[in-house]
């Protein structure tokens, strides 16, 4: 698995390529940690090239939910394929993590969240 991170204006994009399993989930976790340390508030996870996700991979997202709420960090996942989305859906995560199809949709969603506060 490979992770690339870059800024697009105020948005911080984390692009996940490949399979997110137990070992690679640590890399993603480090990437998120880095984003938080850089004081990034609007995180976009590009899942277009995420082929597979395992439970520890899911754990990376779930473990930070409360922390992000406190720090007012907003995140959106986008571009997921059906298989990966199904994993999120079965776990019920589609109800608590914003998951959309397109990057632009994601940006709009984040903007909305930002404005609400």
């Amino acid at each position, binding site marked *: 698995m490979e992770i690339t991170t870059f800024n697009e204006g105020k948005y911080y994009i984390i692009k996940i390529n490949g399979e997110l399993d*137990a070992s690679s989930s640590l890399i993603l*976790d480090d990437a998120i940690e880095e984003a938080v340390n850089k004081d990034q508030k609007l995180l976009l996870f590009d899942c277009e090239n995420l082929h597979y996700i395992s*439970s*520890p991979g*899911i*754990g*990376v997202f*779930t*473990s930070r*939910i*409360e922390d992000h709420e406190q720090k007012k960090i907003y995140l959106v996942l986008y571009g997921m394929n059906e*298989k990966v989305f199904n994993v999120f859906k*079965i*776990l*019920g*995560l589609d*109800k*608590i993590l914003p998951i959309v199809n397109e990057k632009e949709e994601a940006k709009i969603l984040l903007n909305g969240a930002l404005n609400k506060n």
Partner: protein
Amino acid sequence: MKLRRIHMQRLAVFLAAISWIFLLGIAMIEQYRFSHLNIMEEYVPISIEGALLNSFIVFTYIFLWLQSRKNESQPFHNLIWKVFLTGMVCTLFSGVLSLASSLVGISGDTQKLVSIFTFRVDFGLLTIFLLTTFNTWKRMILYEKTRYAVIVWFLFEIALFSTLTSHFFQLTESESILINVFRAVFFIMIMLLSVNLKWVPHLVFNQKITSVFQLLVSLFCLAYFFANIISYYDDPTLQIEDYSENIFYSVLSIFIIIYGISSLLVILFNLPTSSVFEKKLKELSIFQELSSEITEGKNDNQIYKMLLESASSSVSADASWLEVHQQDVFLYKDITKEDTYLIKKEIYQAGYNEKKLKIITKRRLLPFQTKSQYNSILAVPLISGDEYLGIMVLLKKLTNAFDNTMISMVNTFSAQAGIAIQNFKLISQVVESERYKNELEIAKAVQERLLPEKLQVNGTFEFFAKSKPATEVGGDYYDLHRLSEHEYVVIIADVAGKGISAAFNMAQMKGIFQGLVRLNLNPDEFLIKANAALTSCLERSAFITASYFHINTETFKIRYARAGHCPTLFYRDAQDKVEYLETDGLGLGIIRNESYKNYVSINEISYQKNDIMMLYTDGIVEAQNTETKEIYGFERLHDYFENNHDKSIENIGNTLISNLNNFTNAGNINDDFTILLIKF
């Protein structure tokens, strides 16, 4: 009755003694007849006398042979010592006897008889001495024997003992010539045998010196006997057998003298190189010791100690030390710790690089020379595997005191020790991992007990369950609890992740289930309470998925709730269709506050007889083909169930698992998996 060796020996001695006494008796009578009656003829036929002599020789030899078999592995210097001792005792005995006979001062015919007696005694002693030596030489010749040596020896021994037959006859002139031809053949054989001296190098220097001395003395003893016996022949008034021409005795004596002299010379020539051989032997024994340390799995400290001892003694170091920082090992010999610091500093300055052995001999390199008395320093790195362990330093006062042999020896020692230490480490690791393995086996057994062994369902429905962790222990959990006569609770849960941590969380889940189930909560309430309970005891990234079913066999209703677990498959007999029970529900431990209740819901369905419910964990649907990377998936599972619902539930479950094993192409499912089937 089987004769024991000791009895045989006694018998041999007895028979030899009897033979000798008869010989003595005959000789006495003949002497008496010669001096008193002047009769020259033999009193008894020569064949009888020959038979007596041969019986004396043969039984003496048998006795000695039995004696030597008793202790076969004697060292060679002991063998020579035995020859020497026998020679000394025989000579002493003979000397004392002749002295006594001359002191008694009798004369005339009685004196002649005494002489005959002493002659017979001397001759007997000589025979014993010769045969003892013969037996000893035999063992020495046949040491590290070659086939060739064995054959020559065999021929020699046969030929030698066959000459005993000559004692039965009076030999004629022409036969004596023939005997000379035999003598020549014997001489050649003796020369061939005399080069078999492979035992000589095995004597250490001191043993060689004493052996030379003992051999010399033994040869002198022999010379004494010969001179002594010949002196009897000078007296014409004595009627005695002339053995000087006897082929058995002459061949035996020549063999003993030649082999004795050749041993003597070879030992002498080996003396100067003896120390080299001894040193090699010592090195060999050190190697052996080191190797045995390795196989015995001695610990590091013992190996270091051994290494320092061996290395410093093999180069005769004046002082030495060995240090290994990691383990805090510091061993020093004939040197103070303070001095080692100084010298060590110097060694590093001289370019010691922890990879290669370093020899430092130039005195001017050492700024502490005024204090230090060592002019040659050998610094040896200790390396085990790829790891640098420490340093061993050998010091000598002499300049240029380390030659190539010493250096290569020390190098070999340290390499050997390196292997020993690595071996020790490996053994410890194996022991450790074995221990973990045992612990895991215990954990596995404990976990297996956490899953219900027998599922009591009272005939209202059938139940089948199969669960297998990917490694020894796993995170899958299921349970069945009977609340009342018609009410049952079934749970299936899957802890995210695999292995030990998943197993611990699985155990917690069991605790929570057992604690809450008796409260007879609604399925959604159960999940909410379970989520709250897990909040405090689940690490942040972990979560658990679960499905909880409340079955009422009286009303034919199932109330259920799902917490992120794989959707349940349900076969309805009436419609002959399989469907997934779709319902919302968030995994346990994902949201750890009150709001969790917003994410679970309760559902209710009715069932009829012959309906089948299939619960499973994600190990089933995520089983992956190792080549195509394809996963088994929900669709395949649905279709499989629909096509096989008419089978018994055991059959449905077991066939599904073997299908999955085939599907993965690796023969096994690389994840924890559980399958539960309930047929109403």
